[in-house]
Structures are given as structure tokens and as C-alpha cells.
């Protein structure tokens, strides 16, 4: 009995997806729920699981193909053991056809350091043809233009970028100065391209300030238990920063705007992106209408995003849009950095590590928990004065949290 594997329903706003890579080849046995193929949309990589145990009989879309909801991806023969019956003419022999590589295929695989198991085969009995490999090479290198960027915070220890495993690197040479040439993974290459674009399409500058977080820390310390008791979620720092940012954004709406060619688009809402580390790298889920949420609401969203990110389960909607981004390199130990913009946004706030530092209060030198803040902004629409004042507003709200209460 044969069963069809279809492209799952894509999120509403997504027209199509790109087939990144097949994890199974024609003729290979598959298990129920085993991941067959990765489909990539703007933001997320969707996995398509096998509906049942069987043998993958036909692959109808190749790497790099554009597919939409409901498209036929593959056909699986259910309940067939790995050894096909004698009836089929094109049957695998003891040596799987996948291993029987033709000379041209062998040459290409050697030259490009490919894994033949990852390349969809269209040849007789599941064999790879030269064209299959050429197509695979082409689409593996092509960068998807629809992807949004993922801001790379320059920290001392970059987050682990565990994405679709790339090709095996060349073995180290036998001399004492070995080198490894590893082509970029698809995701990496995409991110790289978008980052360069971000820099080229904006006049990016960074302004810095420092904030004394004593009062915030005290607030947290005093109320953390009752907060958890009431709201079932911990009171972190992020909610303070989001609140402070929003109040500042209200005062400086230009920071919340985007550039579109020669137009400035002022957004009448506050969708704040929070950069979080995940298995696949840095992702930026969006807290929508963050101005409508209270501290607990924000903390809950952040916690939820954290869990989803770790599980690779952030949806397309979670990652789309955003008017302003906050990134926190402090969790990795960054003292100070220049975050990169998240296009089409015009500004991004960077948080860093909190250090006890000498501070002057009332002409005395005291020790206070200090965090350096960085605001990178697009000078095309935001002038230095605004950027600085914006950052000062955030600093002031954080140093005196009661201002958030009183809206001053």
C-alpha cells in the first residue's frame, strides 16, 4: 500500500517554502515520525515526518524546489521491508544502488566533499545521476532571498550554531599546519548575506551609555517571591528593559519607525523582538503589542519563547515583523558591543553583563551594579541627538523604576 507525503499546511502569510534537504533516499526504509525532509520558509525550518513505517519509493521534489501547501513530496510504500519483492523490475540489489556511484558522480562528490546520502536521486533504481549532484550543489549554495536576518551579537563566545549538518570537512593534511575548508551551511550563508545587506543598506552607528541597576535589582529581590507566587513566572530583567524601551519609544517614535526607500513608516504599535539563543542559532521572536502587557505578561511570553526556541518550535508568526529589538549579550559575558540592526528596523538595544563597578554618588565613590547599554541606529532617519536622548531615557527609567509607574 502506498501513502503520499504532502507539504504540510504552511502558515497563512507564507506563500511557499523551499525544500532544503532530503534526509532519506529512494529505496531507504523510513520509520513513522522520522524526519524525511526540511522545508524552509522565511523564518522557520519545518520538518516533514514520515506518516508510517515503510520504504521511501519516490521523491517528487528535489533540493531547492519551491513547494506550497499540499504539494506531493514523496511516496512511501507502507509495510514493505527494506528488501523489495522480486516483482519490481527496478529493485535494489544487496548493494544499495545509492552506493553504486557512477564515475562522474564520484568525481563531483569528491571535489565538493558531499554526502551522497543527502542528495535526492532520480536515476534508475535510486541511483544518483551527474545532474542530481549538479542540482544539489547549485541549490545548496543558493541563498534564500526571503529569509529575515538573525542579528549576530558580537560576544566573546558566540552561541552554538547547530543547524543542518554541513558537509564533512576535508581531513587535516599531514603537515603540521593543518587547514580545514568547510563550506557554510545554508542557514549560515543566508544569515551572512543578510547581515552584509543590513550594513550596506543603512548608515549604522552605535551610541553607548551606562545604567546603574541597583534599584531594579532591589525591586527584584524584594518582590521576586510574591511575583512568582502570584504570576507563576519569575521576574527577570528583560521585562524592565522592555518597559523602559517602550516608554522611550513613545517619546521618540522615530526609533520605532522603519525606512522603506525614501519613506519613513511610523508604526503605531510596539512589537518588540527579543533575541534568544536556540539550537539553530540566534532567533528573534516578537512580543506583539508589548505596550499592552504588564510585567508578568511579558515574562510569560519570554519564557514561552525560550522553551519554543530550544525545541525548534517557533512558528513563522512568532518570528515575523517587529518594530524594535532588544538583544542581551550579557548572558554570555559581553561587556560592550555594537549590535547589528535587524532590518527593516531602525534601531536595536544591546544589553550587556552587569558588573559591580566604582560609581560616583553624591561625590562619594561607591560600588554599584553597572550595565553598559548600546544602541545601534540607522542614521538615515535617526539623528545622533535623538539616539542619545532615547538611550538616556531608557537609562533614567531603569535607574528610577518609579518613573515607569508614574510615566515620567
Amino acid at each position, binding site marked *: 500500500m502506498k501513502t503520499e507525503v504532502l507539504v504540510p499546511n504552511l502558515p497563512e502569510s507564507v506563500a511557499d517554502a523551499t525544500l532544503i534537504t532530503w534526509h532519506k533516499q529512494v529505496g531507504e526504509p523510513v520509520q513513522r515520525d522520522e524526519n524525511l525532509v526540511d522545508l524552509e520558509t522565511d523564518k522557520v525550518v519545518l520538518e516533514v515526518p514520515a506518516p508510517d513505517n515503510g520504504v521511501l519509493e519516490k521523491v517528487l521534489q528535489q533540493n531547492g524546489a519551491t513547494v506550497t501547501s499540499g504539494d506531493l513530496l514523496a511516496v512511501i510504500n507502507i509495510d514493505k521491508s527494506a528488501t523489495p519483492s522480486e*516483482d519490481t*523490475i527496478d529493485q535494489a540489489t544487496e548493494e544499495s544502488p545509492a552506493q553504486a556511484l*557512477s*564515475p*562522474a*558522480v564520484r*568525481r563531483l562528490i569528491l571535489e565538493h566533499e558531499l554526502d551522497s546520502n543527502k542528495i535526492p536521486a*532520480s*536515476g*534508475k533504481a535510486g*541511483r544518483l*545521476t*551527474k*545532474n542530481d549532484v*549538479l542540482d544539489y550543489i547549485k541549490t545548496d549554495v543558493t541563498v534564500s532571498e526571503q529569509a529575515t536576518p538573525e542579528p549576530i551579537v558580537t560576544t566573546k563566545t558566540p552561541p552554538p550554531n547547530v543547524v543542518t549538518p554541513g558537509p564533512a570537512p576535508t581531513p587535516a593534511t599531514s603537515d603540521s599546519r593543518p587547514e580545514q575548508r568547510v563550506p557554510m551551511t545554508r542557514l549560515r550563508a543566508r544569515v551572512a548575506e543578510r547581515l552584509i545587506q543590513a550594513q550596506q543598506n543603512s548608515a549604522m552607528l552605535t551610541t553607548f551609555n551606562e545604567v546603574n541597576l541597583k534599584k531594579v535589582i532591589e525591586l527584584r529581590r524584594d518582590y521576586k517571591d510574591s511575583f512568582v507566587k502570584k504570576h507563576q513566572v519569575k521576574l527577570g530583567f528583560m521585562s524592565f528593559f522592555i518597559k523602559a524601551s517602550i516608554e522611550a519609544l513613545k517619546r521618540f517614535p522615530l526609533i520605532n519607525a522603519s525606512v522603506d526607500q525614501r519613506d519613513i513608516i511610523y508604526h503605531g504599535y510596539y512589537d518588540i523582538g527579543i533575541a534568544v539563543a536556540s539550537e539553530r542559532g540566534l532567533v528573534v521572536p516578537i512580543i506583539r503589542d508589548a505596550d499592552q502587557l504588564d510585567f508578568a505578561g511579558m515574562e510569560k511570553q519570554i519564557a514561552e519563547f525560550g522553551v519554543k526556541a530550544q525545541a525548534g518550535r517557533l512558528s513563522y508568526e512568532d518570528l515575523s515583523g517587529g518594530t524594535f529589538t532588544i538583544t542581551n549579550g550579557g548572558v554570555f559575558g559581553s561587556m560592550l558591543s555594537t549590535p547589528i540592526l535587524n532590518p527593516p528596523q531602525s534601531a536595536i538595544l544591546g544589553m550587556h553583563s552587569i558588573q559591580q563597578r566604582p560609581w560616583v554618588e553624591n561625590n562619594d565613590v561607591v560600588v554599584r551594579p553597572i550595565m553598559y547599554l548600546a544602541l545601534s541606529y540607522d542614521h538615515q532617519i535617526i539623528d545622533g541627538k535623538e539616539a542619545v536622548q532615547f538611550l538616556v531615557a531608557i537609562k533614567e527609567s531603569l535607574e528610577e523604576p518609579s518613573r515607569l509607574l508614574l510615566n515620567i
Partner: protein
Amino acid sequence: MKKSPKHYDVIVIGAGPAGYVAAIRCAQLGLKTACIDHWTGKDKQHSMGGTFLNAGCIPALTLLESAKLYRTITEQSAIHGIRVSKAELDIAEMIQHKDEVLRSLSDHIAQLFDSNQIDCIFGTAQLMDAKIVQVHPIEKSSKAYLLECDNVILATGSSSVDIDAARIDGDKIVESYTAMNFSSVPKRLGIIGAGVIGLEHASIWARLGSKVTLFDAQNDFLGFVDDQIVDEALKIYSKQGLDIRFRARVTATKKTPKSVRIEYEDPDSSHQLSVDKLIVAVGRKPNSENLASAEANLLLDENGFVHVDEQCMTNLPGVFAIGDLVQGPMLAHKGAEEGILAAEVISGKERSLHYSVIPNVIYTEPAIAWVGQTEQHLRSTGEPIKIGIFPFSANACALSTGKSIGMVKIISQKYSDQILGVHIINPCASELIAEAVLAMEFSASTEDLARTVHAHPSLSKALHEAAMAIDNRALHIPPSETH
């Protein structure tokens, strides 16, 4: 004993290359099989193998071999330092040799039928309905009788098309069979039709000393062969003394006691030519007339071919038709593959044929063989292609063995490098093409061919080098500037 109609699982009508292969395959699959065939040999005995064996490829190949030998001895032995004072030709013996070859091959098929327990019936047959076949034994004294079966495979082949302007009389105006049995070498031989069959006849008799003139009414000489190969072939044929009149339509023939006067027209004007014998080889039509009784309702198309689906089944369930009886290239191996298909479908297997990778051969000297698409066809579809050509004059083995005539031409898709067509003109073309067919079956690229080791010296090295020539990196010809 009560005579009820004998029952078979399968009855095959026709023991040509399609029919006898179908019968053997049926027997291999455990089906009780009978095969009815009516070809009577010269010795009045049943001769199996149909047109293929009796009047087509096999006698042509045999006679061509004799003719080549004659030519080699009379013209080419001198360069080897072998002097032959006078080589005489005894056509009767040559024909007898050919007949002996046919007889032994026919006997071989008969033995195969025997060992496979296939009942071979010498007679004609007619399909009465899907499960009943009426047999008319050749033996005139025997009465017609009925046979019952579960399945029928129709394989009655084709016959030469007759034209009004030159009606076949079996004496001066003849078709293939008679042309394979001339008692002497015609001094002047006319052939109407410069297609595959006409050229094969021309090759034989020109070598034996005939002055051969071919008349072809079509605008396109060998239109289905790659143009570049055709050009090469024409040059070679002209050197051999073949006179091909293109766009020449024979309008009438007049017989005299000793000759045939041909009247023909070409775009310029009308002409006349007298010949001693005239072969009509304008085409072949399927032998579907009287194949089935009217009540059987066997569906034929407007050209007389039996209508079949992609499993060779006719409109009558359980009745299959194969070979020249159905549409498609009239090739022995195509019919044989269909015979195997039908047998396997009857025994319950799922099968399908794909016709794109079937070799074609014209048994002239040198032979022409090809598989896949021609350059002119690919260009007309706009497919981007690359071409690699290697002449046998640069092949060591060809030079050593006197086979340095012709070339290999490979066409591949420009980007994927997949082999789309291979064309060979050379005395050994019919053998060399097999490698190309295999490569195309596996969707191979020219690089695959180029990276496969070929024995050196060998003629197959020419394919190897042609594959390299695709990327202008053949070793034994200078690099091409126009690449």
C-alpha cells in the same frame, strides 16, 4: 478419443522475432503455449523466424558478409601483400550458403521451441474471438480446426508495400525475399526507396558488381538519422558507386523481355532509366488483413496497425499484439521486447516499456547505428546541447584492422551533461552502439563515459574519445577551435 478443441494458456500467431520470443518467454513463465506460423522455406519446409530470418535482416547480413568478402579479396588483398589472380563469383553457391545459414537458424528456433515444450503449428491462423483461434494447416489435406486459449499474442509482422507504378511480379520487379534469391548478379539494379531496406539491398549487390540506382521520392533522405551522419554516409556511398536519385518519383514501369524501363520525375523534369531488376522497398505495412474474423471485432487504426495500450493489449481482453503489427519502429528487438512484455503481463506481472532507449541499425557497409535523439531534432526543440565527435581515422584499432571509416558522434545536454544521443557510422557500428544504449538506460553523462576505462586498442575507444571531445579534451585529435 473425443476431439474437443485443445486448450492453451497462450497462443502466439507468428514466429518472427517478436512471436518466437514471446512464445519462449511464455513457456519460461510456465504458460502452456502454442505458436502458429506459415512461412514456407525454399525446401518447402516450415522456416521459422518470419521476415527477419527469411527475407530481412538475417539474409541481408549473410549476403553482405559474402559480398564484403568478395570485395576484400578482389580489391583489398593487394595492400596486404596477398595476390589473388582471379576471384570468381558463383551466386548460386552464395545463395545456397545463405540458405544454409537460414536453415540452421530456423532449426535452432525449432529446437528452442521443443525444449520449452511449445507446440509449433505450421499453418495460418485467424482470431475468431478473444479465446478461439482457427488454424488452417499448410498441409492441404488437413482440415481447419479450432484451438481454445486464455490469451492470444498476435505477431504476424508486416509485408512490403506495393505501388501501382511498379507492381511486383516476382521476376523482374521484386520485393525483399526475391531480392535475397537472385540467381545471378543483376548488371543494372534499380531500387525504389532509399530507406533502410533499399540501402541494405544496394550495399549487397553493388559489392557484387551491380550498377545500382536508387530512387527516393521523399524530400528528406534518411530524415530520422542525424544529418551529419547522413552527409558522411552519402559521401561514402557515392564513392562506392551508389547512385541515389533524390526527389525522384517513379511514375511507371514498362517491362521488356530482358529489362524494366523506369519512368520517373524529379523537380526538374521526367527521366527514364532501364534496369535488369527492380526492387521495390518503399515501406512495409502490417499484416492485419484477415488476421481476425469480423465477429472478433479486433480494433485496427486507420493505417491497419492493431490498436494497443502501453501493455500491448488490444481492445479484446487477453489479446495482445506486438512487433510490426503495432505502431512504432519496425525493429526486431522492439518486437521482441514487446513479446516479453506481453508474456509477463499475461503471467500477472506489472510491466511497462519505454521506447526512448532503443538502438537503430542500418546494415549497410559501413553500418549506421544510433540511439537517442538527432542533433537536428534537439536543435529544433531549442534544447541546449554539446557535441563531441571522434573520427575512426584517428583510432588505432580501426587503422590496424582496416575499419577506419566513419565517426562517433555524441550529443549531451549542455548543463546536465546527460547523454541525449549517440550516432555511429562504421563497419562495427551495430556492436559499438550497445555501450551507448546501456549508458542511456542509466541516464549516464558523457563524463561517466569518459571516466570509464576502455580497452586500447579497440574501436570502442572511439566512443571514449567522443565523450572527451564533448569538453574538447579528446586525446587523439587536435583541440577544436570552434568549441
